[in-house]
């Protein structure tokens, strides 16, 4: 340290310096000054907090620009983050040259500017500025200032706490929509993340000393720059926030921030791959390999949290806050207490300060062991309650579930036992750079593998839908997987991946001297390579593996499993929706609690208690997903038709689920209506007097419902053709419907269901989640039979039947299984792939939290469908005019 401090120069030069010099000496001295100014700082010297260097400025700004490019290209996080990062980059470039006394006020201004920038431009479109968003931003500032003001009221501390609780209750009533508010729902997650925990920490500190911080420090603490785009925010300690401010060489602090931001990006990239590729549902566990997959991967989803926390603290470093790490190699914890110390360190510190230490001191008169056990267990109870408190403020609902409670309590017991052991027998500690013996290191590595496995088990339990479902997956312990991979091989791989780094960590090594230049060089080179690979023009040329991996990473939406569950309303019935899944959290965090229920909760639906499970209520109307929906006398979302087609009419019946029904669009905007209109515009040239397109689609329908409605209703309308629409991810819905139909007995109208139940010997009265998993083995057979039945039934009546692939706007995968089975069953298979080409899929959604296509999406579908029908007149002779070549149109 300090070896090259001579190169660290003060950029601002006093005026007298110039006035007292001759021209020659001025030039000479100025050239020396600039040469030094342009040089890089050689080391991190805490005494040189005011050093400035143009090259260092370029180096930091360049790396930050690379990071922004990476976030933008890989779509890591939301557009709001890109906006905040651009504000941060512009602000940092100025901030760097400001005298220290102006930096904190400038940071506060920048933080407010970021809030305004994000609220004025919510959504995927960069050019859609909504200045009414500034009113929301102003409300956040106003409410925040009132809350801070309450802590400083000139009354006794107890009364101030009471006033805070009162204000909190008022806000809670507004959060639950008991009180109308002049601000929009977007305010809540941001306001909550700024104040729900920091206000507790702040009040705790203020109890001791109210005058200890400046106004800028207080405002900076609550309105921290990155907070507006990260509702899940680390609980930064007020004391640490203040004491870490420029407590070391500033270039060191800035560069540390840049390093952490890139590290956070790596976490998020790994998270995306795990989320899109590897995580599987309990229902998909059928053998040992899938069981291991189910157990191991959910824990790795936590990379999302550690990644965002790295980025948050990294951004704060850029403005001088030399905060400690939020996570420290938590996959390499060698004990449960070690795990608690390494994962979400800020949370641990918060709980220790607010709950654990005060309780321990209160209980210690009963003995150390009693105090330790009581304080630890109560600290975990507090953690569980505070997680629910957090969830309430962010989402507006409570998430008390058995899984969640048991997870925290099991962890509490494990940590308590571990802590008691450590209290009695001690724990091996090392000074920085110290190393364990080979024997000790091997023991530590072994323990690390064991802790990793237990935490994985616990995490999979936490994220399972229900306790019985989690236990049921272990029925597959004795079932071998189909491939060459064996469970032993997987376990050896896991042991190596965790054990080798744990061994290296335990063996330690010499502390490497920090070098600003080395850090800049390594981060910049790696960042540049990452940005280059992120460019489609580059990664498309690196082979299919890289291209596919990049597609996974660049997919910021739900994976196919969550999408399917979301669409069928599965999560509506779970109070813990999103609590353990950050992607779902984003979706549900934005969604209003009322007015966006599934179709099955609307008065448009009547339940049959049989198959199909629902029908639309004839001659009814209701508001559904923001639009008025009308149902005709036949129970279709369509205009009125005679039951039998008039002479010279070609009639098409459309079947499918919510996308075809037109969830979220007006009656006249559905693609079914637009197609009918288009067909009739050219009817004069077709030889038909009229085209009828009848919409039999109903939201939440599965293939089993569709088979039943075709048999019971569609064919009686004498269609010439049936168009069956399907998108990916509908098979789990079919299984779920079959389970319900088996349990209420309605499925037994079909002999193929009865055969499967008899063959499998499954207990039909068991937990639905368990039964779903059992039936998953029969999904291909079920779908094949259902498709075949549809085709046979239709052909028997002389009706042509087509299976049409209609992708969702955000669909990343196509339903290969369904497509193959449809072709084998005898459907005419048509494909609407590419229907949304040229559009940003996020602009085609009904709402950010609802993945159904909007009016533009339906228009595109109608156009594409018409085009595909024109091209396939050999299969479906609708007598359409031949489409001109694409170039001519």
């Amino acid at each position: 340290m300090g070896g090259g401090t001579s190169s660290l120069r003060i950029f601002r030069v006093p005026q007298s310096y110039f006035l007292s010099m001759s021209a020659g000496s001025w030039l000479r001295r100025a050239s020396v000054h600039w040469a030094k100014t342009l040089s890089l700082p050689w080391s991190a010297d805490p005494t040189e907090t005011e050093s400035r260097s143009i090259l260092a400025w370029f180096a930091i700004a360049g790396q930050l620009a690379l990071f922004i490019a990476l976030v933008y290209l890989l779509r890591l996080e939301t557009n709001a983050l890109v906006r905040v990062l651009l504000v941060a980059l512009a602000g940092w470039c100025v901030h760097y040259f400001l005298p220290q006394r102006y930096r904190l006020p400038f940071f506060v201004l920048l933080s407010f500017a970021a809030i305004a920038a994000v609220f004025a431009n919510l959504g995927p479109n960069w050019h859609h500025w909504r200045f009414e968003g500034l009113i929301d931003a102003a409300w956040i500032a106003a409410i925040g200032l009132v809350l801070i003001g309450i802590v400083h009221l000139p009354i006794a501390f107890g009364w101030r706490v009471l006033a805070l609780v009162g204000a909190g209750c008022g806000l809670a009533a507004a959060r639950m929509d008991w009180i109308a508010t002049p601000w929009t729902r977007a305010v809540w997650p941001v306001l909550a993340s700024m104040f729900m925990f920091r206000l507790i920490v702040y009040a705790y500190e203020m109890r001791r000393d109210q005058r200890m911080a400046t106004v800028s420090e207080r405002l900076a603490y609550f309105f921290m720059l990155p907070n507006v785009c990260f509702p899940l925010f680390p609980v930064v300690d007020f004391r640490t926030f203040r004491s870490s401010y420029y407590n070391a060489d500033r270039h060191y602090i800035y560069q540390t921030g840049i390093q952490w931001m890139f590290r956070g990006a790596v976490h998020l990239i790994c998270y995306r791959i795990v989320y899109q590729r590897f995580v599987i549902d309990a229902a998909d566990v059928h053998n040992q390999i899938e069981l291991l997959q189910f157990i191991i991967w959910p824990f790795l989803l936590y990379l999302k949290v550690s990644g965002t926390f790295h980025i948050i603290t990294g951004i704060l470093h850029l403005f001088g806050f030399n905060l400690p790490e939020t996570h420290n190699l938590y996959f390499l914890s060698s004990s449960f207490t070690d795990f608690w110390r390494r994962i979400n360190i800020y949370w641990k510190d918060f709980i220790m300060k607010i709950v654990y230490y005060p309780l321990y001191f209160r209980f210690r008169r009963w003995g150390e062991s009693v105090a330790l056990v009581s304080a630890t267990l109560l600290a975990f109870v507090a953690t569980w309650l505070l997680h629910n408190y957090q969830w309430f403020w962010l989402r507006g609902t409570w998430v008390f579930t058995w899984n969640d409670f048991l997870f925290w309590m099991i962890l509490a017991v494990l940590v308590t036992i571990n802590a008691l052991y450590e209290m009695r027998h001690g724990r091996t500690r090392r000074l920085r750079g110290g190393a364990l013996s080979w024997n000790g290191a091997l023991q530590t590595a072994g323990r690390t593998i064991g802790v990793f496995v237990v935490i994985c088990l616990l995490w999979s339990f936490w994220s399972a839908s229900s306790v019985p479902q989690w236990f049921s997956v272990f029925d597959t312990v004795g079932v071998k997987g189909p491939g060459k991979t064996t469970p032993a091989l997987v376990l050896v791989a896991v042991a190596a991946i965790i054990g080798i780094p744990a061994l290296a960590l335990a063996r330690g090594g010499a502390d490497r001297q920090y070098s600003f230049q080395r850090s800049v060089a390594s981060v910049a080179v790696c960042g540049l390579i990452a940005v280059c690979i992120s460019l489609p023009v580059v990664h498309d040329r690196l082979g299919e593996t890289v291209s596919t991996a990049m597609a996974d990473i660049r997919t910021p939406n739900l994976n196919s499993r969550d999408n399917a569950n979301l669409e069928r309303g599965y999560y509506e019935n779970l109070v813990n929706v999103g609590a353990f899944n950050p992607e779902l959290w984003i979706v549900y965090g934005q969604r209003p609690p009322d007015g966006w229920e599934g179709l099955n909760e609307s008065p448009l639906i009547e339940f049959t208690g049989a198959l199909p499970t629902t029908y639309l209520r004839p001659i009814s109307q209701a508001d559904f997903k923001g639009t008025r929906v009308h149902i005709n006398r036949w129970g279709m979302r369509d205009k009125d038709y005679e039951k039998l087609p008039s002479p010279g009419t070609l009639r098409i019946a459309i079947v499918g689920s919510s996308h075809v029904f037109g969830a979220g669009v007006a009656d006249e905007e559905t693609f079914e209506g637009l197609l009918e209109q288009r067909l009739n515009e050219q009817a004069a040239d077709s030889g038909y007097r009229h085209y009828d397109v009848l919409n039999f689609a109903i939201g939440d329908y599965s293939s089993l419902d569709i088979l039943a409605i075709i048999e019971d209703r569609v064919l009686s309308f004498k269609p010439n053709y049936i168009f069956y629409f399907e998108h990916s991810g509908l098979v789990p819905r079919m299984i779920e419907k079959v389970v319900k139909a088996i349990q209420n007995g309605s499925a037994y109208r079909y002999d193929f269901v009865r055969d499967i139940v008899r063959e499998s010997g499954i207990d039909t009265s068991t937990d639905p989640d368990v039964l779903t998993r059992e039936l998953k083995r029969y999904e291909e057979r079920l779908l094949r039979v259902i498709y075949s039945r549809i085709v046979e039934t239709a052909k028997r009546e002389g009706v042509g039947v087509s299976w049409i692939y209609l992708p969702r706007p955000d669909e990343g995968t196509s339903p290969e299984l369904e497509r193959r089975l449809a072709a084998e069953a005898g459907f005419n298979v048509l494909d609407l792939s590419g229907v949304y080409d040229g559009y940003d899929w996020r602009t085609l959604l009904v709402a950010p939290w609802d993945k159904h296509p909007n009016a533009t999406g339906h228009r595109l579908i109608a156009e594409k469908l018409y085009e595909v029908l024109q091209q396939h007149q050999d299969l479906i002779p609708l007598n359409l005019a031949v489409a001109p070549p694409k170039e001519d149109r």
Partner: protein
Amino acid sequence: MNAIQIRTMARDFILNEFLPGERPENLTDSTELITDGILDSLATLKLVAYLEKSCGIEIAPDELVPENLNSIAQIANFVQSKQAST
């Protein structure tokens, strides 16, 4: 009890309790005890109990902060200030 005595006492305790086998010269007055993971919550509570007993002071839970306990030097200053205030 003067600052040197407190430092010696704190260093001996930390070496014996938490760093057995460590060479004494590696633990300096400025070694970061909390930041480097030597003083975790359990160790902090053990150290506090020891300081209270040996130095005749009473430590409150909100005093268990890095400013007071992150190094041997800070521990000595903290204990001295507590002794002065009692």
